């Protein structure tokens, strides 16, 4: 705890004097603020992208796990036997969690939207449907097709949701890329602050010399720089975050038709995520300036 307090002391000491000993430098101030604002804006977008991809992948994945179907079209006499055979094949297929033949009532309910109520299903050559749930690993669909052909020639495997599998993988990758981008943006912010602080320390070599002459410790000198950069980055990142937040807020949301694009808005408590960005940026700036100051002061000794 003591060490943490010591580490944070440049921020806690509300000593305005320490800030004044470093001459103001208008241009680099504005550049630092602008860059941190831009970085925060990008972070909010990367965050939205990552969270949206995550949600999409999740919901697509759920659908995938639920559904493929086998449709059996056979002469009325063979229907029961082939259904039996297909179910037997399915129980023996690795990767199939469960399989269930739909009852007549269920099939009727499915057809109702097209043919209206009261359809005499037992008098029509309606195919029998079998609902399959996969395990996480999934089954080998080519192998299953071959076995069905042999055991139940009237069975057709319909993997209507399977085409989404690569999309789910892509969504996962996109989510990962979002997080990688955030990491890169964080590192870039750190690098930017390090460069700016280094330049500032080098430009103020005489200030440092004078401060040392009158008995300033490294901690005092470092704090003057650290506080300045931490505050600049905090202000810049706050502005950028608000801008990014508003931009995301203005995205049209909700409708299913838009799919991914309209899903970019945050949802629920995820709206709180951007609030993390300015403190994170300030922490990065703090650490980067602290490290730069310690290094330069060590070299100037």
């Amino acid at each position: 705890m003591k060490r943490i307090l010591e580490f944070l002391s440049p921020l806690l000491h509300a000593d305005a004097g320490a800030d004044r000993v470093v001459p103001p430098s208008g241009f680099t101030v504005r550049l630092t603020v602008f860059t941190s604002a831009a970085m925060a804006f990008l972070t909010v977008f990367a965050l939205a992208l990552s969270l949206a991809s995550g949600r999409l992948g999740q919901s697509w994945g759920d659908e995938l796990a639920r559904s493929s179907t086998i449709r059996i079209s056979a002469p009325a006499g063979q229907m029961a036997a082939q259904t039996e055979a297909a179910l037997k094949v399915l129980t023996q297929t690795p990767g199939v969690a469960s399989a269930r033949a739909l009852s007549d009532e269920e099939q009727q309910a499915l057809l109702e939207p097209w043919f209206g109520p009261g359809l005499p299903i037992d008098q029509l050559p309606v195919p029998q449907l079998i609902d399959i749930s996969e395990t996480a690993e999934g089954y080998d669909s080519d192998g299953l097709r071959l076995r069905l052909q042999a055991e139940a020639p009237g069975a057709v495997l319909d993997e209507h949701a399977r085409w989404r599998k690569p999309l789910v993988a892509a969504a996962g990758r996109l989510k990962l890329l979002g997080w990688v981008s955030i990491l890169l943006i964080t590192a870039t912010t750190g690098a930017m602050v390090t460069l700016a602080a280094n330049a500032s320390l080098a430009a103020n070599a005489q200030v440092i010399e004078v401060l040392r002459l009158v008995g300033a410790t490294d901690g005092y000198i470092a704090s003057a720089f650290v506080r300045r950069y931490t505050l600049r980055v905090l202000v810049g990142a706050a502005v950028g975050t608000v801008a990014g937040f508003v931009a995301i807020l203005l995205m049209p949301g909700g409708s299913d038709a838009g799919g991914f694009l309209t899903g970019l808005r945050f949802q629920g408590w995820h709206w709180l995520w951007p609030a993390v960005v300015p403190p994170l940026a300030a922490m990065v700036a703090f650490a980067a300036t602290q490290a730069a100051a310690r290094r330069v002061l060590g070299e100037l000794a």
Partner: protein
Amino acid sequence: MIELDNVAYSYGGDALLNDISFSLAPGSFHFLTGPSGSGKTTFLKLCYGALLPTEGDVRIFDHSAKDMGRDAVAYARRRIGVVHQDCKFLDHLPLNENIALPLSVSGQATPDQFANLQELMSWVGLVGRGEALPPELSGGERQRAALARALIMSPDVILADEPTGNVDWEMSQRLLRLLVELNKMGKTVMIATHDMALIRAAKALVSARVLRISNNTLQSAGVDL
């Protein structure tokens, strides 16, 4: 207070200073003379820990300079008032704040000390110049400001490198009297100077010892000048 024990120093080539043993006794008053380039400034820098000896040992307030971390040196500096030969300031801050800088840096800026500051400003003849920026000052004013800055912490030891180099005879007498006054209050004083007239004037006021750097080493110049 400050002791040098068989100290040698070189900036890389031949030794500039050699075999120097010296002890700065509390309450003493020293002058340090020697030709230009003989190493007076270097000697003072060794005394306040800005340089480490290449041989031998410097002890500052009973701590070996070699073992002192940068923070320890910083704390020692608060007890040693140094007037640099090339008086450097923070050019963006007004003179008041520059002179009070040792106080801010050590977290001792209080209203009491501010009264001190006004008194000090009048001692060194800088009343009314407090709001001026250092680059607007004359060479003599800078020197006086540097002296004021060195004294603001009421240090135990005062090391002054040519503190009267740029001021007229009358002002140099005044600054000398200030330093003598401080010495009578118990401060230890060492002044590096070429100015023999100043040394002679001082002898009338205080029992000062005169040291001389020649042939790369420290010699006592004795009483006769």
